């Protein structure tokens, strides 16, 4: 080896080493030293800044949230990636599916943040997540049509507690009952509502009408009587209650009329609270209690594709004959997956998990963008706290301590990488 060779090598390496030294290595040393000094940087304070990490309320929130992030996000993204990778092998359009799921990796976290601000909009008429959620909820739970209805003056009904209303007097078979209410805005009435009709008496049965006892422009019209332009309450639930027990129940027709069997004779009629519940408004995704899971959801949307692609590549290396042999031996798909595929993929799964963990440790953009101002403190993470301490709170000592703390958390991975490569380099 000649001296000129060495000089040439130095010239090739110089730009990279210079930049790495100034931009990556120097900051590590600087942060380390700076983390032991006070705010002004003039006096040594020992580990005070580190102590602050574990006493300051907002930093503690950040540590707690970062822990949730590191535990939940990589595990869910990897699990989904594994499921997708295995399942896409069984359909012909697997590549198209992979493309769709992998695509979000190419866009910025800022764009993803804006996308998910839209998804998580609270109003179910505007936010997609709540539109779906409310749709599912209303399919399985009764929705109420008359949230603001209540008895008017001199009504035969009284409040029965918990939002229900009940007749003051017991009802008799053959004597039509009136259950007038007021207070539903005209445009809120169900479209199926027809003009109300006074119920005809039927021997042996309890009949009646429940309707909106209010004529626009004329007030109530005839109080507790059905006027021409007043609308029935279609679907209003009516229960006959005797001694605290429901003996019969029915729903009103489009014109507000209803019929109960003779069992209702002598009972009180109750309009249960389910008629009057406020409409379900969905989940407050970005409220203080759900904001971190919601942001994690957007992260998984971005990174499940990464896990899927790496795992699919690993899967391609799994010998097909092995799986086929197990199937022929009568193993179910689940057993094949659990006993053969997953163990063979273990190294890939570990790499994906660790990569995502490091990635999540530094999560910043999504948490900076998605939570509205009111819940940003609850969503705090270390990278965001560092940004705030360094650039808005003017606490360089604490910011440096957070930086060193983050660095310490990735040191094990750093050492692992070096050890893995040392074997290769020395080949």
């Amino acid at each position, binding site marked *: 080896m000649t001296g000129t*060779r060495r000089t040439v*090598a130095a010239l090739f390496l110089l730009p990279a080493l210079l930049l790495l030294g100034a931009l990556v290595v120097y900051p590590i040393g600087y942060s380390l030293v700076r983390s032991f000094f006070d705010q002004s940087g003039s006096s040594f304070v020992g580990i005070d800044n580190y102590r602050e990490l574990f006493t300051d309320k907002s930093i503690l929130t950040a540590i707690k949230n970062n822990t949730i992030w590191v535990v939940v996000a990589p595990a869910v993204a990897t699990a989904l990636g594994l499921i*997708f990778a295995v399942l896409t092998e069984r359909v012909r359009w697997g590549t198209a599916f992979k493309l769709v799921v992998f695509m*979000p990796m*190419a866009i910025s976290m800022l764009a993803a943040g804006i996308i998910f601000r839209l998804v998580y909009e609270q109003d179910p008429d505007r936010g*997609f997540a709540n539109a779906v959620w409310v749709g599912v909820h209303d399919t399985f739970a009764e929705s109420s049509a008359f949230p603001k209805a209540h008895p008017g003056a001199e009504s035969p009904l009284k409040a029965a507690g918990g939002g229900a209303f009940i007749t003051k007097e017991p009802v008799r078979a053959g004597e039509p009952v009136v259950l007038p209410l007021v207070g539903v805005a005209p445009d809120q009435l169900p479209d199926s509502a027809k003009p109300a009709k006074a119920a005809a008496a039927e021997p042996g049965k309890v009949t009646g009408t429940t309707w909106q006892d209010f004529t626009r422009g004329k007030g109530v019209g005839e109080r507790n009587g059905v006027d021409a332009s007043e609308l029935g309450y279609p679907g209003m639930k009516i229960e006959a209650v005797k001694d605290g027990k429901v003996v019969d129940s029915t729903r009103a027709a489009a014109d507000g009329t209803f019929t109960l069997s003779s069992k209702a004779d002598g009972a009180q009629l109750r309009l249960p609270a389910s008629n009057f519940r406020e409409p379900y408004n969905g989940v407050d995704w970005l409220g203080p209690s759900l904001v971190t899971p919601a942001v994690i959801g957007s992260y998984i949307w971005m990174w499940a594709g990464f896990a899927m692609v790496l795992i699919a590549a690993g899967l391609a290396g799994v010998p097909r004959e092995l799986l086929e042999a197990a199937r022929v031996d009568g193993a179910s798909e689940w057993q094949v997956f659990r006993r053969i595929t997953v163990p063979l993929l273990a190294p890939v799964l570990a790499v994906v998990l660790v990569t995502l963990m490091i990635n999540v440790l530094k999560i910043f953009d999504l948490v900076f963008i998605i939570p509205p101002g009111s819940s940003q403190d609850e969503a705090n993470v270390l990278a965001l706290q560092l940004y705030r301490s360094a650039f808005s709170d003017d606490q360089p000592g604490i910011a440096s301590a957070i930086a060193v703390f*983050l660095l310490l958390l990735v040191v094990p991975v750093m050492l692992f990488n070096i050890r893995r490569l040392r074997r290769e380099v020395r080949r």
Partner: protein
Amino acid sequence: MSTPSGAAHDGVPKAAPSAEALKAQRSLGARIADVLSGGFVRVFLIVVGLFWLVPTIGLLLSSLRTPADMGSSGWWKVLSQPSQITFDSYQRLLENDTITGSLLNTILITVPATLLVVVIGSLAGYAFAWMEFPGRDWWFLLVVGLLVVPVQVALLPIAQLFGNIGIFGSIIGVILFHVGFGLPFAVFLLRNFFAEIPRELLEAARLDGAGELRLFVRVVMPLGGPAIASLGIFQFLWVWNDMLVALIFADAGNQPITVALQTQVRQFGNNIDVLAPGAFISMVIPLAVFFAFQKQFVSGVMAGAVK
């Protein structure tokens, strides 16, 4: 796993022990379960695929509606009322100097930061792969160790350093920072790729009297094409999509599109006519790059799985 041909079950044509025959051998129940679960898998993947697509479609359709429409109903209303579609927001966005200027800044930052990382990384990668000098492996391992250093560690120190040398707030500062943090991966990826180049090729060129620089330009760079492409695409997307680094190191006049949009997020509802089309425009280039160079992107992702 052999199928004695005589043992074929009723109604199954005697055939070579193909996969078809093996399948036929299994019980009817197992086959029905297979068909059912196949149907289930399809439905499941379609639903998941829709869930993955819908957020992006939502952004696109939102960007094509007026703020008034956005305030009163969800973007999916466009599907039943296509007349709501308008390009007004895009038109106003392109007349907005802050946004067009920031798009230009994004390009001014991304292109040099990508080229510099590729060139500087290739030089170092080649040196680590094929040049002899003392402590070579130790230097390389040091660089590998830097792969996982979080950018957060450098924000404050570099902000002060740049302040002292007078480039804080400038585009040059942003570029330098991206180059610094792009290099460990670049050196790692390229050194490993260059090391696979057959020794004879390099020896032959050396015997022909080619100098190291000439060797590098004429032999190593062309052969390293695939790895360089992967790295270039990876770095390009990385820098294009960055918000944090530019948020700190770029002045108002030098901010890229991500930072320009970020300033509008605090009043999300009021600025939706800037945010939705702006976000979509900022996604167009990365998505185009992604679709055009999928293969290289994937191999970059695989190689960088430790970053």
